[in-house]
């Protein structure tokens, strides 16, 4: 009889189901650590952003843990990969909050993905600091969302001023990425400022993140005869675009935004990005003490000179940990208030003062790609 019962499909099915359910059970959260969540693009089209940012955060975590942690407890970092996709970002932030019960979140670099995850953090009352998302909409999501970098309204103005006044070129073209909030926003601010300064946007074309062939758009732009092409996109497409622009023998200067900041830009673009400019948050060549210490430590740990994502994320992590320490508690509202009160916090990428809109007033540098290396061309204060 037992044998017949075991043969019964019902029991088998039930057994299978219970095993599956058991496999899903997650451990109860440990109360002796401070759980910090990180969501970044560790894979996908903008992988270097995520990897670099996570490295910077890990450096901060290791330093704090070596000193005894926050409020006497070690920091437990939970890192999730959003695969460079906004819908994944929304899902992993939900998981970090609901399943891992983190008390603070760091991320993301790309504005589109931060915009996907921020509303979830806001609703749950978990403070979120983005190291490098520059689109103004991000901090407008709510009072728990902060940033430690400049915004695109500033960056657009910087780039426009650079093109029109510094380089003296008035015929401008824009090639923007319609699939991402950052690119669209930056293009808008560039256009507005350039026109105010007397520049002329002779043509504006678009592409989608992930495209590999831009020849059609470049050919159309060629017809309008621009002197500058502003490419407010991410590094993978920027590199390919530069190559195809060179292919068509166009005599133009290329200018980009902080989305260009990755070692891959030169790898992909090669000779085509030589001489191009882009706006960034910091330069590894900066002679300040903090930068030099950070760069040395990063090179020692990871073996290469960091791009801006690492120091920005390091700063964001430092800010968050300091705030938790100051607040003396892991309650969301207390941490939020502590972050809002940050004044003149020393960061690798400059002093951080969080204003009423939860943004930071930071300086920008204009870098030029010179023989495959990024050289400082200009520093612009807010």
């Amino acid at each position, binding site marked *: *009889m037992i044998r*017949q*019962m075991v*043969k*019964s499909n*019902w029991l088998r099915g039930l057994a299978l*189901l219970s095993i*599956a*359910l058991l*496999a*899903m059970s*997650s451990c109860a959260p440990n109360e002796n650590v401070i759980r910090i969540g990180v969501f970044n693009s560790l894979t996908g089209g903008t992988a270097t952003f995520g990897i670099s940012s996570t490295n910077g955060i890990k450096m901060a975590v290791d330093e704090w843990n070596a000193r005894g942690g926050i409020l006497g407890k070690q920091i437990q970092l939970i890192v999730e990969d959003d695969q460079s*996709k*906004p*819908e994944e970002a*929304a*899902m992993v932030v*939900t998981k970090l909050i*609901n*399943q891992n019960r983190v008390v603070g979140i760091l991320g993301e670099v790309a504005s*589109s993905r931060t*915009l*996907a995850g921020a*509303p*979830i953090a806001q*609703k749950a009352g978990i403070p979120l600091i983005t190291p490098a998302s520059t689109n103004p909409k991000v901090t407008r999501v709510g009072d728990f969302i902060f940033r430690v970098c400049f915004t695109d309204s500033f960056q657009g103005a910087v780039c426009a001023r650079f093109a029109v006044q510094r380089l003296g070129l008035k015929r401008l073209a824009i090639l923007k990425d*319609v*699939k*991402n*909030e950052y690119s669209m926003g930056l293009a808008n601010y560039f256009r507005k400022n350039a026109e105010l300064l007397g520049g002329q946007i002779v043509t504006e074309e678009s592409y*989608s993140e992930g495209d590999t062939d831009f020849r059609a758009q470049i050919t159309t732009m060629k017809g309008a005869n621009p002197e500058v092409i502003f490419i407010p996109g991410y590094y993978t497409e920027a590199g390919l675009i530069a190559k195809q622009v060179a292919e068509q023998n166009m005599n133009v200067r290329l200018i980009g935004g902080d989305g260009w900041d990755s070692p891959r830009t030169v790898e992909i673009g090669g000779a085509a990005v030589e001489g191009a400019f882009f706006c960034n948050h910091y330069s590894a060549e900066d002679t300040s003490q903090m930068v030099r210490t950070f760069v040395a430590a990063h090179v020692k740990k990871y073996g290469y000179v960091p791009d801006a994502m690492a120091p920005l994320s390091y700063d964001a992590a430092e800010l968050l940990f300091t705030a938790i320490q100051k607040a003396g508690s892991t309650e969301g509202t207390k941490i939020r208030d502590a972050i809002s009160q940050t004044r003149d916090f020393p960061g690798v990428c400059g002093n951080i003062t969080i204003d009423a809109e939860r943004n930071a007033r930071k300086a920008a540098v204009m870098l030029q790609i010179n023989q495959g290396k990024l050289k400082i061309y200009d520093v612009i204060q807010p």
Partner: protein
Amino acid sequence: MKSRSVTRTLLFSLLYLVILAVLGRTLIPFIGPYYTQVLIFIGINITLAVSLNLILGFAGQFSIGHAGFMALGGYTSAAISFYFLGPLLAQLGTDGVLGTVGEPAALAVALLSGGIAAAIAGLLVGIPTLRLRGDYLAIATLGMGEIIRVVILNTDFVGGARGFTDIPRWTTFTWVFLVAGLCVLVVRNLIASTMGRALIAVREDEDAAAAMGINTTRYKVFAFVLGAFFAGVAGGLQAHYLQYLHTNSFTFLRSIEIVVFVILGGGGSITGSVIAASVLTILPEALRGAESWRMVIYSALLVIMMLTRPQGLMGGREFQWSWLIPRWRKQ
């Protein structure tokens, strides 16, 4: 005979509703948000699988663009909630009767609009494409699904390429299984009726069915529209749970996932779809660590199934109550 089965159905439905309400109050708060999420996705996937089974399994139409209807329903219901119902509720306040009834009523309206939008799309897509057969129909539905997705992608007021955020969270466990139960009930009753037999006749041999005087186009379109309706409602449920929509969640890949539910469960078997949808929702969660292997296993499973047991798990058979009596009792 007829009245007895109607009474039986009514009794069962009532029992189901009661169980749902009880579970909703007791089980859900107990098991926590993570397990609740899994259950909710099971329910949504059951609705999707059963609705596609109507088109694919019972009517035999190669529709592989189901995610497009889901997207349309999801976005429509989200837009209605975000732009009208949400602000309306906020204005009316949450005291008294409105407090308890407000949200579910709003969700009902939103889901209905999503379902209707998807149904209309089903009509518009179905009428021209359903005169195609086999592979051509598959490609046409695939194309239609993608067109819907691209149109939504380029529509700015629903977020476009950035996604639709801040959708009110009104979906609950009870709602999801209410819809799933309704879908199963409707499809089951449809199959048992004259129309159901017509659909099966169309599936077996469309030309013979036409020769027998069955208006094949009308029945095919009806199955399509009904399937699309439920897909749209499922999309609405997802939208009001995740509070976020992005067209990347509704690509051809999603359509194929739903096709896999139907095929693995066995086309033409509602039980099969329910089981397959449930198991295949739990499995990826259980395999959370091995994300990259999950899809490889999925696709390998699909190929192996088609080569060895193409009729799926249930082989077109349905659940019988007599199965619950253990074999050793029957003698």
